């Protein structure tokens, strides 16, 4: 026991705790303000109310159906959009004619702010899962296509010549040269796509609040009912899931790209 308390002590000393000052101070201030009724409790509820709501929600069926539905749409859209993005990015990357034909249109369409597509998508395809997944795919598509294109373009001429000397077929060229060489860039694109897909998932649920279930729908209904603890909890859940996606993306990238060795 003595050893363990010693290691705990060391652990406490070695970590930099200064980062906690801000959030802890914020919560303490918030608690004090609520306790002495300095703020309107309807507008700014006490922290324990949020914890209470969180506890209730964690056992509520609606909450998990909502999260499940959101995650399902998010991951379907991410998968479809990324696959389409890699395909289009590769075509644009290694075919000059494809590049000349479509790059100007692609670059112009890229500048259309993502959410501007939603009114058109919803009036053409309705408010169901399909329409939302299409929208999320679009969000994931652009960063992946763009980065795959750049990755394919960054391949050196010498590498291509080696492949030609070996008499690679087109398929071998893609599998053995272009995909591995472009992989680091593609991962950058996929990471961005994860962020944008989650943004699109939540955004589409907030904008199409009256249709379907999802985390965003729960939050926006909380706003309509002026249930501030629920909104805060929902926001935290959205943020934590987003952070979790970022963490996973970073881990996968580190695992997949071990062969690159330590790069500066």
């Amino acid at each position: 026991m003595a050893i363990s308390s010693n290691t705990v002590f060391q652990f406490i000393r070695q970590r930099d705790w200064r980062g906690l000052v801000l959030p802890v101070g914020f919560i303490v201030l918030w608690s004090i303000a609520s306790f002495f009724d300095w703020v309107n409790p309807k507008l700014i509820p006490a922290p324990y109310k949020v914890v209470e709501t969180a506890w209730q929600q964690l056992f509520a069926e609606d909450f998990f159906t909502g999260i499940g539905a959101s995650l399902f749409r998010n991951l379907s859209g991410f998968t479809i959009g990324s696959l389409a993005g890699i395909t289009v990015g590769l075509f644009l990357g290694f075919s000059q004619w494809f590049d000349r034909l479509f790059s100007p249109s692609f670059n112009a369409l890229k500048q259309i702010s993502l959410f501007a597509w939603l009114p058109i998508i919803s009036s053409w395809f309705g408010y169901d899962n399909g329409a939302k997944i299409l929208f999320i795919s679009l969000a994931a598509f652009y960063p992946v296509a763009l980065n795959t294109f750049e990755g394919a373009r960054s391949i050196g001429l010498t590498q291509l010549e080696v492949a030609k000397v070996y008499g690679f077929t087109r398929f071998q060229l893609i599998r053995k040269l272009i995909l591995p060489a472009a992989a680091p860039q593609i991962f950058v694109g996929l990471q961005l796509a994860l962020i944008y897909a989650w943004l699109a998932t939540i955004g589409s649920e907030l904008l199409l609040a009256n249709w379907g279930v999802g985390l965003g729908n729960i939050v926006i209904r909380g706003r309509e009912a002026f249930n501030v603890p629920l909104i805060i909890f929902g926001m935290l859940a959205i943020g934590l899931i987003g952070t979790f996606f970022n963490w996973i993306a970073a881990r996968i990238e580190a695992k997949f790209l071990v062969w690159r060795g330590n790069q500066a």
Partner: protein
Amino acid sequence: MTTATQQLKTANNIAWLVKLPSLARSFLIRFGYAATGILFPLIVLALWQLAFEKNWLPVQILPPPSLVWQTFWELIDSGDLTSNLWVSIQRIAWSVLIGGGVGLAIGFAIGLSKRAYAYLYPTFDVVSQFPVVGWIPLLMIFLGIDEALKVAAISLAVVVPVTVSTYKGIRNIPRALLEVGEVYQFTQLQRLRRVVLPAALPSIFSGIRQGVMQAWLSLVFVELLASSEGIGYLMVWGRQLMQMDIVFIGIIVIGLVGVVLDFVLRFIEARLQTWRRSAF
């Protein structure tokens, strides 16, 4: 003598005539490349027109190009388009000013001071991973749905990229540059003005460019969600009237403004980069 110089002159004058075929060829090739880029949009436009003439889709779903064109001029004549766009641009300007200012302040603080970094960065790192749209319901409770909400939500989107690239710009300043400053015994202010600012400027500006593009993204979202003016509202309005032509115009105008913003900011960024190159 005179004839010789005159001959030389005429030779110079007609030199471009000799080069003309190759000039024309390179022009034609370039023109050809540009033209292939226009080919695809033209095909889409033709299909669109064809779809209208053959009645493949009802007009409420797919308005003909001519109607979109006509509505575009009607909206300009009535001032609906310009006034809404102006409102949106003002929102962007305020948010870039506020969000960019906050981002610069945080970025400089955590870039220059190790202590500020230790206190602020962990919180910033977590908060910055929350999607911007997730904040909006909470902001609506505190700020209502007026102008304050829009400016706050859009500013939030600007803060993160500006802070991150300001911080990185300062952190990535080569040690050698700072050491030169030490040799010259620069004061803190001189160090900031003559070493840190110029060296970090390209990175800071790239952050501002990203911030503006993020602002444009959140602006459209907020205006679609809760607004009574602005380019996003124009689309909601068109959608409610079942006038898809207005929605189309909204998308096209949003795309055009995006292209212009991107072009201008890239131009300025490139200028900053060339300045930097010539300095070394």
